[in-house]
């Protein structure tokens, strides 16, 4: 499993700079204008990074390469879900870090106080998106995956405003007092795990 994660990061080696560029571009685009920029920067960076790694895989016929190595298809899928978690944490925490800095360095932007929901909310949203995206990535062919990447990109752009409203609602209602929000996060986690099992099943049956 560790070797598979290692493989993903070796494959990304020359593109790591691109992830930093994503972070910078989304920060510049959202921080001055959007009140919920902390969520959008985290979600966009995390999902764009996941898309980047899957596109590199698809471009290089990664599945055909991996199945020649001594690893099971189950581990191939599980490793990609762990990669998704790593990118999610990276995107969201990097966004949190940048916003903490901006709050101190540029107080005139009037960024709201950061709460634990500003981390958990975007993590939940990215994991939910990844739960839908990854089964498609492992089931569809090269062309299909290209289409799915484009569709998800459009969905994410369209989700910017609803995300801002949703996150504001969460922040206004508070987290600890609201059992529903807690259940939603647990639900997303279970959805993510179920998605992983489904993807393993689908990918194990797929002809390459």
């Amino acid at each position, binding site marked *: 499993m560790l*070797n598979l994660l*290692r*493989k993903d990061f*070796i*494959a990304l*080696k*020359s593109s790591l700079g691109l992830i930093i560029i994503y972070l910078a571009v989304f920060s510049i685009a959202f921080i001055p204008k959007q009140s919920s920029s902390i969520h959008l920067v985290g979600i966009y960076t995390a999902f764009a990074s996941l898309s980047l790694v899957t596109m*590199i895989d698809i*471009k*290089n*016929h*990664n599945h*055909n*390469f991996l*199945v*020649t*190595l*001594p*690893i*099971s298809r189950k581990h191939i899928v599980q490793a990609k879900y762990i990669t998704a978690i790593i990118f999610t944490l990276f995107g969201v925490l990097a966004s949190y870090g940048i916003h903490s800095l901006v709050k101190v360095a540029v107080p005139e932007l009037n960024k709201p106080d950061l709460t634990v929901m500003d981390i958990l909310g975007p993590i939940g949203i990215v994991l939910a998106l990844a739960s839908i995206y990854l089964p498609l990535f492992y089931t569809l062919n090269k062309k299909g995956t290209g289409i799915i990447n484009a569709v998800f990109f459009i969905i994410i752009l369209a989700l910017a405003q609803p995300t801002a409203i949703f996150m504001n609602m969460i922040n206004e209602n508070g987290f600890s007092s609201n059992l529903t929000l807690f259940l939603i996060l647990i639900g997303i986690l279970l959805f993510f795990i179920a998605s992983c099992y489904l993807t393993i099943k689908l990918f194990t*049956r797929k*002809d*390459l």
Partner: protein
Amino acid sequence: MNAIELRNLTKTYPQFTVDNVSLDIKQGYITGLIGPNGVGKSTLIKMMLGMIRPDSGSVNILGCDMPKQEVDIKQRIGIVSDDCFYYEHLSIRDTKKMIAPFYKKWNEKKFSSYLEQFELSPKKKIEELSKGMKVKFSLAVALSHEAELLIMDEPTSGLDPVFRRELLDLLADMMQDERNSIIFSTHITTDLDRIADYIAFINRGKLVFSEAKDEVLERFAIVKGDSQLLDSDIRTKFVGIRETAVGFEGLVDNRQEAERLFGNYAILDKPSLEDIMYFTAKGGRIHA
């Protein structure tokens, strides 16, 4: 003992079927898998490797069941294909760093010596390699983890004659250890004329025969003669026959019977694997 045992393998596609193939690949020998393009050789190899799931039948490799013991099997086999699916933007060194940790018996010294022998620079990116160089690289990978079984799918199709000879010598070297086995799928049958011990012939998704190469070449014969020798009964004795204005040339799968039938009236030649493949694939009568 058999390195590979295929039993009743079937895979159906809308326009093509691998039909109930049972095949044994002997341990300690080189087996050539021959057949024209698009008859199911690659599908069969992909089923062996677990890349394609058969509709029915079973695959056993080195005594292990595929796909149940897929990981153990892949520790012990090397795969060389003309479709090399490495990350194009990475260098040979990075690709090695990616692959080596997966293998328990990775031999770094061996890998470096193969790179040197094949004149592959570790700094070179995969995308900069020619098709032949990619095959060399995948061969270096396959030979560096002490594989007991090499599965090669059209490995020589993009290679120049010099490296093709080198490759065949390398495979012969590998066979010094009698536990090692090779299955070599190709439509360039001259390579197999040189090194194969056994030949398995696939045509239209079916196994035509799987026999020792020498027995195959003894059993089949090319018959050449005057058209007057042919009648409808005689024509049925041919696996494939090519008729011209002046005579005929055909393949029979029973040399002794042909000798009896034609006596001194026709010429009987020893066929090449290419002749066997050509006439079997074409079948019936061919007019030239």
